[in-house]
């Protein structure tokens, strides 16, 4: 297992030895820039709403990790399913959950779940989105079960989900990976390794240098990718998804990145993470990096980027207005929906 993240061409080549997929187009690269910037702008806006007391409870941001959600979500086919965990708002956006629904959810409005649960704890089966829950590990076998459904019906579809570095220490995570491997399911699992499980660094969680090495124990491919390179994430995911679609079984992908904020909005990571880490990873910012690449390729100019940013803010203004017009969740409905007939 390599300890340095693979370059995108190399990672893709391993998985997709037979027929190389067509290269990503400039238009697609520009779309990725839009999703990255939308992801960050939306989370920044939610942080402001949190400060104002209008978003309650936990707010788990993905500052500096957006390339993982965006790049992987972008690689799925239209009928594939996914389940985000707490820092995968970008996946939801890319997969067609509008910003207005996300803002409404974080503000506990009537849509999508009427204030019954917080953060990214919601789903839309018609968009192939399954809800996560807070206890970690169990989602792996649930999404393996979604993949099992595809396999039993002979459908060429794929299920994908995520885990943090911390989640890979749970028994349920390992049961889920082993089950998916034993059943050779069309399943892709990310380990979003941001270095910290709340306040505990990876080195205190396990002795592996690369968490993708856990794949070896289950006889499935384990890939390491630079999680701050959106194109590398896209390509490694696309190769894993296509492999799963062809009946090649699951892939584990470790995306290396860094959590530039606390675990949740209340938490100041600078109290326990060395300051040099923040400086280092700010320089590796995935959005700056992708933007520079596009500017260097002559695909976009500074003016177009500035227009894009203004467009995103206008979209989010509208989304927030829509969300604020939704009524709050209604306590009178609380007893409904425990069972089907209620």
């Amino acid at each position: 297992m390599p300890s340095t993240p693979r370059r995108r061409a190399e990672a893709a080549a391993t998985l997709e030895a037979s027929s190389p997929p067509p290269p990503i187009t400039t238009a697609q690269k520009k779309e990725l820039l839009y999703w990255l910037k939308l992801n960050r702008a939306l989370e920044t806006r939610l942080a402001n709403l949190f400060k104002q007391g209008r978003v309650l409870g936990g707010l788990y941001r993905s500052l500096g990790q957006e390339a993982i959600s965006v790049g992987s979500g972008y690689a799925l086919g239209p009928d594939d399913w996914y389940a985000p965990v707490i820092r995968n708002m970008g996946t939801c956006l890319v997969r067609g959950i509008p910003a207005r629904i996300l803002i409404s959810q974080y503000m506990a409005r009537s849509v999508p779940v009427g204030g019954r649960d917080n953060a990214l704890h919601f789903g839309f089966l018609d968009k192939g989105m399954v809800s996560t829950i807070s206890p970690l590990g169990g989602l792996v076998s649930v999404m393996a079960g979604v993949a099992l459904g595809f396999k039993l019906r002979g459908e060429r579809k794929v299920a994908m989900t995520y885990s943090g570095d911390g989640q890979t220490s749970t028994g349920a995570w390992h049961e889920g990976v082993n089950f998916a491997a034993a059943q050779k399911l069309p399943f892709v699992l990310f380990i979003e390794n941001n270095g910290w499980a709340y306040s505990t660094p990876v080195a205190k969680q396990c002795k592996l240098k690369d968490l993708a090495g856990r794949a070896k124990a289950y006889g499935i491919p384990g890939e390491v990718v630079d999680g701050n390179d959106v194109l590398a994430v896209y390509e490694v995911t696309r190769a894993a998804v296509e492999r799963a679609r062809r009946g090649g079984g699951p892939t584990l992908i470790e995306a290396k990145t860094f959590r530039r904020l606390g675990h949740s909005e209340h938490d100041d990571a600078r109290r326990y993470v060395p300051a040099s880490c923040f400086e280092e990873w700010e320089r590796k910012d995935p959005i700056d990096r992708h933007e520079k690449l596009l500017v260097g390729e002559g695909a976009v100019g500074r003016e177009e980027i500035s227009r894009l940013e203004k467009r995103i803010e206008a979209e989010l203004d509208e989304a927030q207005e829509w969300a604020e017009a939704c009524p709050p969740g209604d306590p009178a409905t609380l007893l409904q929906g425990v069972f089907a007939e209620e």
Partner: protein
Amino acid sequence: MAVMTYLEALRQGMWEEMEKDDRVFLLGEDIGAYGGAFKVTAGFLEKFGEKRVIDTPISEAAIVGAAMGAALNGMRPVAEMQFIDFIACAFDQLTNMVSSTRWRWGASVPIVVRGPCGGGVHGGPFHSQNVEAYFFHTPGLKIVEPATAYDAKGLIKAAIRDDDPVLYFEHKFLYRRIKEDVPETDYVVPIGKAAMRREGGDVSIITYGAMVHTALEAASGLEADGIQAEVIDLRSLAPLDEEAILSSVAKTSRAIILHEDQRRGGIGGEIAAIIAEKAFEHLDGPIVRVASLDTPVPYSPALEEAFRPNAEKLSKAVRDLVAY
């Protein structure tokens, strides 16, 4: 009609549902070629094939998790716990993930998790448990426990067709010990409806599972003392048939709750509270619980006999209550 055991009736119910509905499949440990530890699924692999009869790793959390995922994706999985004691390994999946899903975000999780419960066969602390109380507390889970072969078939069919997660507890003591005429036709026993097993005007014995037979044995003996006991078989623990409980207590004015699960924190406490809240004015005496001792389930015959309720212990409780 054909005479069949409780186990054969359960097997026929699953078989019929699998023949009728392609979405139904089985997953669990040793359920395929081996046919399950108690042979409940014997013959299923040959009939339905490996895709629909899946031998899994020893991973109860993954079995229940994968069942949920497949159910979200339009399937109707029936997951077997080899012994119901091992359902504890899937506790998080059931109490956090499966049970809350419909309420939290509106998705249906039509899974059945079934397995052999209960003692009387000297299985020791980890092959004899009754686990209903752990899940009875959790909103969103249905729980059934048949006492007869007829109900074993009718309830598994209802459970598989139900749009909510159903825990189906089958009592291993009854598997091959009871048999009766069971229709070989398609029928269901509705979830949430208790059954009157014996009518009587002096005392209500509210029970379920293998203890229904203990209650009937005690009731026959008590006739000699001139005591007419009514026996209510709950069949469904969640939802509970409160109406059946309350109308029986209104008639007899005396309530005994009998269960094989340990006494403290068992569902008898909840049933007693319901009776106290809603039928207080009908009562002529205290609400009495007859249940197992508050220890792990013991292994040796002598210890297990001392641990579990039996007809003799129940009869004494009935006589004491009638004399109150």
